[in-house]
């Protein structure tokens, strides 16, 4: 929701890939690498046929899948195997980027800031990039693998206060939600606790799965991990959207498990000042 709105407002034209399918993500990756590559490649091949230059995704997991497929296709042997599974031949000439990367590199921090109608003043935000957006560095080719700063810069430019957050690239465990829930709770608890410790009003993420996981599991964490967490978890474009002038509803802030109302109130008050 917020991604579409923000993209439009920033002049990024998004075209939906026709008849797109699942990228394969973690489930396919754990079962069969070739299948994993093929599932991602199918979408990329369609996009190539549609004459698109870049496939953008808001999800780092899809991104990794796309980038893996793009790596596989460089290898002649693997390209053949892939194409045997596909209806459309996949050339590997397209590129894939996260929406964050497009905003940061192609629109630019300054241009985003210039369009801000309602700066994020009064918000203290902890930027959380997750474990796979910037790593492994050779594949990700984006930002610093251990100390990324792109969201920091965007949020700062939009007027928010961005304190030093030590767990920017820790894993929240989301993918282990089914097989090992205990582990997920421990990992997620650490991240949320740290964000609260540094006095953040909200955690800002760049991954929908992290968002869901960290938002939905706070009740479980509080009852099982012996720490009390109560922190809104927002996707980066929701905040950019707010700054660009969209209403909280328009960027989907009414759909969170942990309500961001306190944050919004603080912000409104600051804006009035």
């Amino acid at each position: 929701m917020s991604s579409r709105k923000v993209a439009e407002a920033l002049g990024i034209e998004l075209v939906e890939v026709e008849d797109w399918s699942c990228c394969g993500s973690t489930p396919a990756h754990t079962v069969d690498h070739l299948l994993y590559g093929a599932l991602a490649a199918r979408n990329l091949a369609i996009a190539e046929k549609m004459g698109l230059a870049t496939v953008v995704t808001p999800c780092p997991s899809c991104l990794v899948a796309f980038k893996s497929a793009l790596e596989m296709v460089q290898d002649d042997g693997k390209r053949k195997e892939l194409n045997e599974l596909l209806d459309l031949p996949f050339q590997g000439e397209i590129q894939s980027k996260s929406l964050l990367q497009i905003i940061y590199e192609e629109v630019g921090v300054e241009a985003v800031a210039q369009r801000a109608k309602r700066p994020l003043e009064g918000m203290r935000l902890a930027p959380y990039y997750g474990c796979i957006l910037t790593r492994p560095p050779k594949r990700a080719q984006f930002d610093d693998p251990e100390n990324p700063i792109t969201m920091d810069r965007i949020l700062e430019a939009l007027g928010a206060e961005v304190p030093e957050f030590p767990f920017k690239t820790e894993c929240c465990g989301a993918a282990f939600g089914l097989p090992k829930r205990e582990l997920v709770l421990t990992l997620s608890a650490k991240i949320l606790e740290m964000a609260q410790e540094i006095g953040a009003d909200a955690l800002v993420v760049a991954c929908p799965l992290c968002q869901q996981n960290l938002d939905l599991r706070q009740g479980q964490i509080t009852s099982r991990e012996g720490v009390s967490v109560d922190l809104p978890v927002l996707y980066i474009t929701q905040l950019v959207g707010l700054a660009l002038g969209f209403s909280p509803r328009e960027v989907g802030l009414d759909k969170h498990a942990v309500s961001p109302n306190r944050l919004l109130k603080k912000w409104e008050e600051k804006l009035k000042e």
Partner: protein
Amino acid sequence: MRIGVFVCHCGTNIDGTVDSHQVAEEAKKFPHVVYATDYLYTCSEPGQQEIQQAVGEHDLDGVVVAACSPRMHENTFRRTIERAGLNRYMFEMANIREHCSWIGEDREANTHKAIELVRMAVAKVANHVHLHPSYFEVNKRVLVIGAGVAGMQAALDCADGGLDVVLVEKKSSIGGRMAQLDKTFPTVDCSICILGPKMVDVGQHEKIKLCTYSEIEDISGYVGNYTVNIRRKATYVDWGKCTGCGLCMEKCPSKKAYDYHNEGIADTTAINISFPQAIPKKATIDPEYCRQFTKGKCGVCAKVCPLGAIDYEMEDEIVAEEVGAIIVATGYGLLNMEELGEYGAGRYPDVITGIQYERFLNASGPTQGHVVRPSDGEEPKRVVFISCAGSRDASLDRPYCSNFCCMYIAKQAILTRDHIPDSEVYVFYMDTRSPSKGYEEFIRRAQEEYGVQYVRGRVSRIYPKGKRMVVRGADTLLGTQVEVETDLVVLATAATCAPEAEELAEKLRISYDEYGFYMESHPKLRPVETNTSGVFLAGACQGPKDIPAAVGQGSAAASKVLSLFSKDQLESDPQIAQVMELRCVGCLKCADTCPFQAIEEKELPDGRVVGHVIETVCQGCGLCTSICPSGAIQLQQCTDNQLIAEVEALCQAWRERSSG
């Protein structure tokens, strides 16, 4: 021409995949070849004697040895045939080892290739002419660049051997890194106590001319006769007058200047003497912080200096020096913590580097040797050391080991326990590297006598928790994750090349590896020589190394210079470019191409302008010969005609084979 061919087996190195005997038999059929044989080790004494004998018995006037790379033994065999009475340039080596036996496994194909290589070498020798080296005078002065412990040792040894030395150092004082250290492993003796007297010796030696706060501007010339322009950077203090009394430092109002000697753990004044034992003990103004420069007014030091030494108008000065040899001893740098994101990228005050820790430990450091946490000045009760911070890390493109950190971590761990007896010390390590004498015992002492806890595993993250830091890593021996809460973290940051090492290498025309460390001429047999004659290496500029190794190289480089200068005249290699003036059209394209500026313009008596090769400068690289439009410039013993003869021999053989 009567040519002899000697084919080497090199044990099984060659004969394992090349039929050396058959190569010799085939060679007998080549034009000009009157004798050919094979031998187990041609370079051995009997092998060389056989060549000498054959020259006499068969009245040879040219010799081909088919063996290893000419880089190995060309000179050996040149001397052999010279002893047998031949001109030493009537010789050619066919490389049938590195270029043949070592790279293919098919014996038949290899043998065939070896035969062709020998065929070409024979064709070339048949076109060889006698060459004679010329001789030139040597300027017996030596330039040493970098006055760390390696450069100081080299300078002292050269000076004690009677040579005049010019010692150029970038910083205002000599001493290098060792002057920053507290104690040194494995004896834990005080660094400045052993270095200080050496520094005084250097400062007072009548044969050593010190140029500190200076850098190399440019270098021209060649072995025996280099001209070096040295930039003496403006210190804004007349060192002829300054007595190092330090009054200016007391009064300078700008007290927040970056303190390089203390690695930024304290501030210094804009005018400062970098440390109490500095040699020369002279003040320098840092214009980045001096109010006279930043604000345009102040002048306090000029007022207080009893000798009127302050000169705000001072400018850099270029001084030319003539020397015959150069020793490079520019040491190493250290990786910036900002590159280590997982360790906080320099954001946490209580995560510091090993060299900063040395300054905390050091009794003449800013805390008088009391170890404190930078964040709040409290004494740490727990200290965690992390080895290989940026070393041995392919993800940072730095796969090499920094050599001395395992040892200095053990030293610093022991010192920590000494300074703070109720402290706990942890070391995260991949494996400890302690191969020199007494080193392994030293690490054992840290573990057993001092109770330092060694945890084998890498650290994945450091993060703050309240006033302390948490170090999270793996314990690969227990197979678990560990988290250690601590007051202070010390990173053994990787040793890098010295700042601007590449630029200096370009000026010196020496090679460097992908990390900026200078390349020795042979990793085993010529460890302090470079491929530019007259330029030698010492110390950590060639690769990270500890003090004993750096000092050893300093002496080794000095002895190389002393033996080079034991002759009054040097021989120049006659295998250089030569201009055939009749053919030269005077376009001087060769002069533009030559990377060594070895070609000058020359006017003939008839007014025609031609290129002229300066014999002593030309390195024989041959670049010019490929650019010359009229083929007028030719590399001796590698002329167009000789190359054509080689190709012709190859084609002839091919024609014979395909017709027969």
